């Protein structure tokens, strides 16, 4: 067992733990924090089903972003949709046998890599070209984009320019999941790609990437507009009635 294999195996266990536990803790804190007042942004649905539909439109279509900024929507939606396809395509490195839908998605996932990079480039360009967006951009905003872009570019390079030993990589990944470690190929591009992915997993629960779970807990989006019909009182607020 090489030191490289051991190092990357431990890295991915740590990154996975950070991602899963970190996000779970955040979600727990959101769940435990009461929403004492009804504050849905109107026109808001008057039923729970309507709320589910509203959230689905936000998640799938980025409805509010579409209303606010067409350029940001185009680049943002393109990036996220492409990322989804790319992630689905990558499932084949974690499965044996591979699910049929994952086989179907290979073609789309491969070329979605370009759309993902283009979307990220567009989003990044706004941070330089639009004076308002330049003003609000922090170093971490740029670093997030740089990180994602580097992941996309290193992945595309391995797919189209300098192939890596994909069979050995898959053995390594399956080994990780089965706690039966297999050697990791020492291809520098692959190591870079994997390191950046692990880094992304590490920063997820301590960064703005929390917008993903955050949307589901946003009271202005997830509340039903029915304050006259249903009394809505948080525990700490109910104590005032005593």
């Amino acid at each position, binding site marked *: 067992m090489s030191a490289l294999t051991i190092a990357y195996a431990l890295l991915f266990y740590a990154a996975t733990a950070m991602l899963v536990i970190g996000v779970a803790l955040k979600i727990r804190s959101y769940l435990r924090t009461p929403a004492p007042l*009804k504050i849905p942004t109107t026109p808001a649905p008057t039923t729970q089903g309507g709320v589910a539909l509203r959230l689905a439109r936000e998640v799938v279509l980025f409805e509010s972003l579409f209303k606010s900024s067409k350029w940001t929507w185009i680049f943002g939606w393109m990036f996220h949709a492409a990322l989804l396809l790319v992630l689905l395509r990558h499932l084949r490195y974690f499965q044996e046998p591979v699910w049929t839908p994952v086989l179907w998605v290979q073609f789309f996932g491969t070329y979605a890599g370009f759309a993902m990079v283009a979307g990220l480039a567009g989003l990044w360009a706004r941070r330089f070209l639009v004076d*308002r967006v330049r003003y609000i951009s922090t170093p971490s*905003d740029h670093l997030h984009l740089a990180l994602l872009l580097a992941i996309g570019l290193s992945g595309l390079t391995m797919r189209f320019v300098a192939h890596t030993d994909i069979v050995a990589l898959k053995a390594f990944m399956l080994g990780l999941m089965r706690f039966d470690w297999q050697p990791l190929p020492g291809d520098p591009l692959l190591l870079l790609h994997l390191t950046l992915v692990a880094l992304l997993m590490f920063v997820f629960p301590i960064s703005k990437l*929390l917008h993903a779970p955050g949307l589901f807990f946003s009271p202005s989006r997830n509340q039903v507009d029915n304050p006259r019909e249903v*009394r809505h009182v948080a525990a700490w607020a109910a104590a005032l009635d005593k």
Partner: protein
Amino acid sequence: MATAAFETPKLKPYPVIPLIAEGSMAHSKPYVASSAIQQNIGFPGELAEGWEQRAIAKMGELLGKYRSLRVYMDACVHCGACSDKCHYFLGTGDPKNMPVARQDLMRAVYRRYFTFAGKHFPKLVGAVDMTKDVLDDWYAYYHQCSECRRCSVFCPYGIDTAEITMAAREIMDAVGLGQKYSNEIIGKVHRIGNNLGLPGPALEDTLLGLEEDVKEDTGVDVRYPLDVQGAEVLLVTPSADFFAEPHVESLIGYGKVFHAAGISWTLSSKASEAGNFGMFIGNYEQLRKIALRIREAALELGVKRIVVGECGHAWRVAYSFWNTLVGIGAGGTDPFAIQLQSQLDGRYKQPMHICELTYDLIQRGALKFDKEKNDDRIITFHDSCNVARASRMGDMPGGQFVIPREIIKAVANRFHDMAPETIHESTFCCGGGGGLLTDDLIELRVKGALPRMEALKNVVDQHGVNFMATICAICKAQFSKVLPYYGFDMGMVGGVHQLVSKSIRLGEPH
């Protein structure tokens, strides 16, 4: 702190997003509340040793009490979707008036004290210590937000700057840095029963005067009753309705509607005010305490229905929060709520907006109008922010857009909406909401009105509009003051029930 001379922005034929002008509104700050004003409503008198720790502790407390604040502090990705949505940014170009930047004033402190990244890599994520300079920035810019929520419509995560502004103001109050205008008014409402400090006898006198005026005008005995035990309806309306123009015209209108429909009603000297400035300062206890007056008045007078007059934020508080705060509404199973539910008539929505009441009567054919009496007016409608984006009317989503317009169309012949991107949930705030309707902020108010003024100018030029109807006391007061800066007549603004009042057929009293 006298307001320096400033230039009124030029009206352009189409909206232009300004280039950022850093610090251009840094000088805009409202008067600070005196120690007496602060202590009167239970806040510390002034900043004292150790306020920084107390501010952080208060922030921690609020993060534990409000899910909105906790999620909104984490979820922003700085995408910039909100950056051109705030009327104060559009009117001033000050980048700290972009909702994201306004939120970041608090987010920077949140990160420093409550997040891993901010504790260990402050520079990287823009985290800062709580210092006097930061507090001064908060005081300036959290008083350049009217809590109108336009940004929350356009944010992909629904991040609502109003929630953050309220939290910031609550933290500032908790360490002794309050705003004079709002906190003085809250003191008045507790002491006297309304925001303007009108005592019972003055109200009575005003209402008698109105009865005489209406009699003279129409020959009909329309009553404007106060403290009538056993009336069907308790009307709660902004106190501006009692004496200021054009507000009082709407109050006259409500009385005529009740008269024509034969509904007995009353005002209450104890709870004559619908406005609830507890919301503006984000303080739940104050919100609740102010709302409790209404509940007490309703129980004492034994009314069956509670109706709210033309006031934007008051309608938000009534519609969205009264049930939560004091049990005015349905569905409560605690003794607190059951008491009210047993008294109030469950066949009606509780509380009800005066526009809902009038609209229902029109639908049922209970009111008749001579529409041509409003023919001298070519009318447009300004959706008030708190009604449009934070409350509802009727039974369907968006009823708050439909109902006031349907009333206008039922009582007048000539109506034109302003541009679609400036109405309904995309409406622009008048520029004076959220506790900013004070002369020390006049520059901000004038500049913040720009987007609305541009939209108004377009319908004035294209359709000859000469009247902007609205259902908010703050909108009416703000526009009366600001319209002349843009070359419009201050009399162009008025209430929906002002139009109702003019064309309603009174006939014989019931």
